[in-house]
């Protein structure tokens, strides 16, 4: 354990710590962020009315739309001169998602990443290799910084083809691989093609992030690479990875509940649900200074497991992330809202929105968006070349804007 005094603290103490941090977060949010002050005032509430953790349910939710409406700096709780990092990601609305960090926030974030690595059994003696696509830039940066902070030898994500990545993996004697579940499966197929076996590698652990990891897939990768697998959960809006992490006992994700408060709600009614019942994960930050988030709706479906964990940590666990409560889906770990596809097509085609169908497919272990576009009259051309060009342009547009791989087919 990185910080046993917190990770395994008595529940009653954790509860008081959460309450004191929540109350000061509410005070800061109320005094410094107009959006939150209006929310409180509309309900006739003051920060001091929240006297117990359960009182939090009296406050309204914060949604991705709220973040978008307050783009770019509307939800920052400190002046810009106190901000040392401004992170953006494509988001799932029209505007990018912006999160600010003070230097204290960055320090906290590094500690949380070190917690995650320590729980995964990674130490400063490990050689850590990241294989993550550019579309997961935030995961790349976060996990690289965390491993460096821990003191491991880090091979940052590079733009190599998979054969070269495997050469690096073998020759540099990588002991920890960090990638996504789909990419790990793809690596297995490339290994078979190159006639590489796990015995040729020095790999001991794999940390699989950014996409759900069903038990069957986990087993497949564990057997194929002959490694111990761990996983982590995080969302960019709330500091990214390190929010929750798997442990030695391999039974869910320990939620860093000393710095973030989790709730599970019924996505339809908004009512809090008891532990064990699946619903939508809602997160409130307790310690971050630059970008406090009150009751942020993650959209992820999971449940809370408060039973003691064999690893000794008392931090509550998240169960398996079993999907989304909204329409957002993931292509190789990158979140996409269906509306984004239509919007991008319309932009590209000069205002014309053809009918289209899509699904996420897996090819050689890689996830890609299979997009079928109906050839409306305005788009149709006799020349095959023009049509091929259209496919290419759409593909690149999706790659540029969302960072996802796509296969485009045209249909009459």
């Amino acid at each position, binding site marked *: 354990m990185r910080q046993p005094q917190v990770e395994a603290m008595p529940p009653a103490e954790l509860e008081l710590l959460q*309450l*004191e941090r929540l109350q000061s977060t509410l*005070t800061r949010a109320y005094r410094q962020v107009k959006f939150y002050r209006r929310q409180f005032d509309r309900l006739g509430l003051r920060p001091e009315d929240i006297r117990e953790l359960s009182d939090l349910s009296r406050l309204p939710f914060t949604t991705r739309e709220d973040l978008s409406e307050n783009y770019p700096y509307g939800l920052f709780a400190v002046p810009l001169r106190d901000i040392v990092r401004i992170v953006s990601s494509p988001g799932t609305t029209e505007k990018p998602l912006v999160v600010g960090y003070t*230097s204290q926030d960055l320090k906290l974030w590094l500690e949380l990443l070190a917690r995650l690595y320590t729980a995964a059994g990674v130490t400063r003696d490990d050689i850590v290799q990241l294989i993550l696509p550019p579309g997961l830039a935030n995961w790349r940066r976060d996990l690289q910084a965390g491993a460096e902070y821990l003191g491991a030898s880090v091979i940052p994500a590079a733009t190599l083809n998979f054969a070269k990545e495997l050469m690096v993996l073998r020759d540099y004697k990588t002991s920890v691989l960090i990638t996504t579940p789909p990419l790990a499966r793809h690596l297995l197929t490339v290994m078979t093609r190159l006639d590489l076996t796990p015995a040729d590698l020095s790999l001991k652990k794999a940390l699989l992030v950014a996409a759900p990891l069903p038990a069957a897939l986990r087993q497949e990768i564990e057997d194929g690479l002959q490694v111990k697998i761990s996983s982590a959960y995080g969302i960019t809006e709330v500091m990214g990875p390190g929010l929750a992490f798997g442990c030695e006992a391999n039974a869910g994700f320990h939620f860093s509940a000393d710095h973030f408060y989790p709730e599970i709600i019924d996505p339809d009614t908004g009512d809090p649900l008891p532990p064990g019942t699946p619903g939508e994960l809602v997160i409130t930050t307790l*310690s971050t200074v630059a970008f406090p988030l009150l009751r942020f709706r993650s959209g992820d479906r999971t449940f809370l497991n408060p039973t003691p964990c064999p690893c*000794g940590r008392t931090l509550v666990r998240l169960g398996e992330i079993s999907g989304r409560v909204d329409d957002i889906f993931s292509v190789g770990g990158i979140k996409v809202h269906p509306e984004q596809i239509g919007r991008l097509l319309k932009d590209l085609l000069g205002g014309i929105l053809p009918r289209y169908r899509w699904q996420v497919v897996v090819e050689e272990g890689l996830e890609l968006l299979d997009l079928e576009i109906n050839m409306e009259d305005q788009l149709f051309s006799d020349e095959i070349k023009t049509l091929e060009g259209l496919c290419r342009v759409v593909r690149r547009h999706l790659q540029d804007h969302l960072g996802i791989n796509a296969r485009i087919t045209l249909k009459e």
Partner: protein
Amino acid sequence: MPPIWAGTGSNYMLKIRNLFAYYGAVTALSGVTCHVNQGEIVALIGANGAGKTTLLNAICGLVRREGEITFLGRSLIGLAPENLVALGIAMVPEGRQLFAPMTVRENLELGAYHRYRREPKAAIAEDMDLVYQLFPRLKERREQKAGTLSGGEQQMLAIGRSLMARPRLLLLDEPSLGLAPIVVEDILATLGRLRQEGVTILLVEQNAREALKAADRAYVMETGRLILSGAAQDLLQNRQVTRAYLGRDYKEFTEGR
């Protein structure tokens, strides 16, 4: 294997939950929740009038209060101020409040008043030696009248007197007030030695920089509410704190251009 931390019970010595305090119709604290761990030095910083001293007074029952305060699992609500000493809580008030016509030694003896009937004199003498070790200046002046001491010496005597009650938790209100910077450093440096003697300390200070240097952890208070908390070292670097309480921003501004 059970974790090494399991079953060790609570480390939180002082727990405060939703504490409100009032001066007549004025609300001076509006819902303060915080804690002090056994063996910690915790600083409470904030501007003048933020409510820092009120929090100490509320712990001691010197102002009208509502909420929960527990010390080593025992509720302090409803206890009269004079009963706190027996529980192991001592307060060193702002302005020291010494008995000026009495000598240093007599002032120290008064600090142990509640122990004379129950404890052997030797134990009390031992504690007086400890105070003299912590503050050799007091030993030199033990027969001098308290009123003739310098400000720094008076502060040492005030702390020494409260130590004579054998507190487990010491509440210190503005020990640096009116003292020269070098004396302040001297006094705050002794806090670390007090901790080695098993005393836990809650320190209220307007001199944020010195307080944060001496403390392990700190809370920042603004108009009756706690707005930030964290490791003292981190708060020393926090720009919100430096701007508001350390006066560094002006320097940054002028030296930066």
